[in-house]
């Protein structure tokens, strides 16, 4: 049990001033909100320093902004830490994570075509699931386009 508290506490200590909001859902699920400028730094802490595994990312179109959740799994004790980033709806952009790990390549392409978030520095930002001739600006998972 000690071990469990330890890893999330260590993460909290390390990210200290970058944490905007911290939410503990239960023993195994934690949500940490951070600013989008710090994303690469925080991800590097989780992935490289603590050995978290990148599970996936979720792009959500909320009322006022677009949220991206990066879900990281700590396989030694089974926690999931989700980094939450809020983006401006008019110009959603964020740094790409592909330089940290290759697993982010596909999911970023998917979020780009489904929710319309621009990933800066992505090597190959093109359609993954939808056809090449999909109309531009029509994002299936945005609330206003159905």
């Amino acid at each position, binding site marked *: 049990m000690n071990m469990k508290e330890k890893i999330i506490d260590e993460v909290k200590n390390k990210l200290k001033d970058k944490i905007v909001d911290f939410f503990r*859902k*239960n023993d195994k699920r934690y949500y940490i909100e951070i600013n989008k400028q710090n994303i690469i730094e925080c991800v590097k802490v989780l992935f490289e320093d603590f050995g978290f595994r990148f*599970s996936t990312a979720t792009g959500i179109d909320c009322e006022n902004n677009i949220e991206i959740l990066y*879900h990281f799994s700590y396989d030694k004790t*089974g926690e999931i830490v989700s980094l939450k980033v809020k983006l401006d709806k008019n110009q959603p952009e964020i740094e790409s994570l592909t330089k940290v790990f*290759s697993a982010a390549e596909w*999911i970023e392409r998917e979020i780009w075509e489904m929710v319309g978030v621009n990933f800066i520095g992505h090597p190959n930002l093109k359609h*993954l699931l939808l056809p090449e001739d999909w109309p531009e600006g029509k994002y299936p998972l945005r609330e206003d386009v159905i």
Partner: protein
Amino acid sequence: MKKIIPIGPYHPLQEEPEFFKLYVDGEKVVDIEIEIGYNHRGVEQLSTTKHYDQVTFLVERICGICSTSHPFAYVNAVEDLLGIDIPTRAKYIRSTIGELERLHSHLLWLGLAGHFIGYNTIWMWSWKYRENVCDILEVISGNRQHYSMFKVGGVRKDIPKEIIPQIEKMCDDLVPVVDMFKGAVMDDPVIHARLKGVGVLTKEDAIKYCVVGPTARASGIDIDVRRDDPYAAYGEVQFNVPVLYNGDVFDKAVIRILEMYESIRIIKQCLDKLKKEPEGNIEVKVDFIPPGEGIGRHEAPRGEVFHYIRSDGSNRPVRHKIRAPSYVNIASNKVAAVGQTISDAAITLASVDPCYCCTERTVAIDVNTKKEILTWNDLIKLSQQKTEWIKKHI
């Protein structure tokens, strides 16, 4: 001269259409481009138009081979959101179904892997024994696939006492069969020569691509959601997680065979518990889903299935994110297949069990003349010829 071999998108043998573009130099694969999306049905968007009970059936229809994994992860996610605990009997039933599915899925993969290296006997045999598992699932749930056993808060159907001996008998009968397959794979010098050192995914690459399931465990990454983050009855039963370290196709095959033993072990423990538990108490009533978010995971036959649910208090999820294990595993082919010969490409691409891909519509096209050189049949033939050659020279 660099040539392109497109594999896919259509492959009569089975399953999802996917498109692999192999860049080859002579016999060697130098690069690979993977194109998916031929199978996109917009489930994530559809899910937000259905209410919570309907979504169970929708996510079941994402994949037919692991048709319990998605509902399993989904109900875990909703129960995580609600923070409820389900009755013990329901937990054991869930685990039983999950493991029965792992058995049939691994037998299916084994057969197809055998077909790809030219051992059609393995294909026919393993599919023959897979039928017995499907029959048991039909006895329990009423359908050979798409069992529809799960619901938020429990399970839909009970496993009555009368059919438990039948399931036990099937498990007992399966053990010698798995022994036979183990012997066929482990002791056969041809399979050793054909699969060892092929399609190696090193531990570093495996971490970089964040692969899951047997693909990760064959590369020496010791992860298994069942053990690391116990859900359903997995916290209360004994089982081992086999881990191997070479990362080649041989190890991936062996891992799956060893896992079948563990599945049989888990099923038997679950059935023992089910015999003792009183029948009937299989669900808790859920009438309201509060606003919030939940994450559910399940170790499917291919690896970790990940579901994220966000609710706003209405009867439909506002966002439902689904990540299937093949999504990360297929991407790792990019490193595993490069550097192989073309005849090894088929089994390497198949070794992650990518809800398989792309038979028969493979054509090799000369970049300059656009002339077809190799068809997928030729590719399988090449693969099978190599096995024949090894057989003769061993």
